[in-house]
């Protein structure tokens, strides 16, 4: 038996890629809301890996930490990756203040994406609340890119106040299309708001799509997703055709550290997109 050199290094291939960030450059920063910006990133070296709508990148600031942010741009656009970031903690606040030319660490993309193919030949119902429109936007782009493959398409979007509506220019552009129905509501109106005031599940109840033929994609605060999913199942949509995007404390993003579990599921690898039929009951259990 030969004696191996105990100091011989085993190159950490494969998984090292997933755990070690690469440097990406900030190309553009677009303010969205009072505390939210959209940051466009591209790798300093090499190509940007392809991603699926709904997947997540881990963005880090040197020596500070990492946060998971959904990719919220158009998957068909090569090279640039768009991320909408709300300043909520130390790292995200730092990320919300970057300027073009700054570098950011990026790992990813990770997780499951929206199953857009499941809606082929069916009605597409997109239900977003607050910042939840950001992870859904790539799915909207993906459907619009092949619009003829789907039946009716509806976007239901709710936010706290009109000032909290994300991507308002885009919302107007989508509303102007004849093949996409956009319904927006706010919890509380401000002066000059001529639109609806109410809750997103209320929009769902008036949906008018054929429940037997629809697939729904939900993202937003968990309470909103729960009530909207219930409203959808009350209309007759099967729970297996309702997809939700969940968030938990995702750290490693590769199913090793154990932080992001919800019952049997790892949100970083089994999710973040999961069918309501799998997680609906789990989401109702307190502190699970």
């Amino acid at each position, binding site marked *: 038996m030969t004696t191996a050199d105990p100091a011989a290094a085993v190159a950490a291939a494969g998984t090292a890629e997933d755990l070690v960030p690469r440097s990406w450059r900030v190309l553009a920063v677009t303010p969205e809301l009072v505390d939210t910006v959209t940051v466009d990133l591209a790798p300093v070296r090499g190509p940007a890996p392809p991603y699926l709508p709904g997947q997540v990148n881990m963005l880090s600031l040197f020596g500070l930490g990492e946060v998971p942010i959904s990719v919220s741009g158009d998957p068909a656009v090569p090279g640039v990756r768009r991320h909408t970031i709300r300043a909520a903690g130390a790292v995200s606040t730092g990320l919300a203040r970057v300027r073009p030319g700054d570098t950011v660490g990026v790992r990813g993309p990770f997780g499951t994406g929206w199953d857009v193919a499941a809606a082929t030949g069916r009605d597409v119902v997109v239900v977003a609340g607050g910042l939840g429109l950001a992870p859904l936007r790539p799915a909207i782009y993906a459907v619009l890119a092949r619009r003829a493959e789907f039946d009716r398409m509806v976007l239901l979007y709710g936010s706290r106040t009109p000032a909290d509506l994300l991507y308002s220019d885009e919302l107007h552009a989508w509303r102007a299309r004849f093949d996409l129905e956009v319904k927006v509501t706010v919890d509380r109106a401000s002066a000059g708001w001529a639109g609806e005031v109410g809750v997103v599940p209320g929009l769902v109840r008036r949906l008018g799509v054929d429940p037997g033929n629809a697939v729904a994609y939900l993202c937003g605060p*968990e309470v909103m997703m*729960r009530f909207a999913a219930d409203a959808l199942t009350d209309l007759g949509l099967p729970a297996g055709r309702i997809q939700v995007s969940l968030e*938990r404390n995702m750290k490693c993003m590769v199913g090793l550290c154990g932080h992001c579990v919800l019952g049997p599921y790892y949100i970083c690898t089994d999710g973040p997109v999961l069918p309501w039929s799998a997680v609906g009951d789990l989401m*109702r259990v307190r502190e699970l």
Partner: protein
Amino acid sequence: MTVSPAAELAAHPFFVDLADEVVAAVAPLVSRLDADPGQVLGREGEPAGVFYALTAGRVALEVHAADRPPALLETLQAGDVVGWSWLVPPYRWHFDAVAVGPVSAIRVDGARLRAEMDADPVLGYALAARFIPVIVDRLQATRLRLLDLYGHDHR
């Protein structure tokens, strides 16, 4: 001295002004609840087959989610009725109803009552008409609270 749930029913503010026949129809469907602090009377998403006419203590309506602190929506106390989801399809609790301290209540079998209300329109209308003002009152209160009157971001 223990008062029977049926006798308590007739004296409860929600039922006290209802016709004797209406109360008599509900009486066989009641039982007594004595809940401990923290006891869950109804859980969001679960079938709502009962409602409670509170006689003592306080019940909180709550909603919880992983991504927010637990929210206390409203509290109800002696004299109030907790739960109307038994009356409204899909007959499922919309929020959690939790006893804040020790609670005593008259528990009514709402599923059976609903069947009787369907069978007897006079009974049905009498009870539904009794519930409607309660629900409207809560709705108005909620709307007023939505105004966030005591907040700082209004002129």
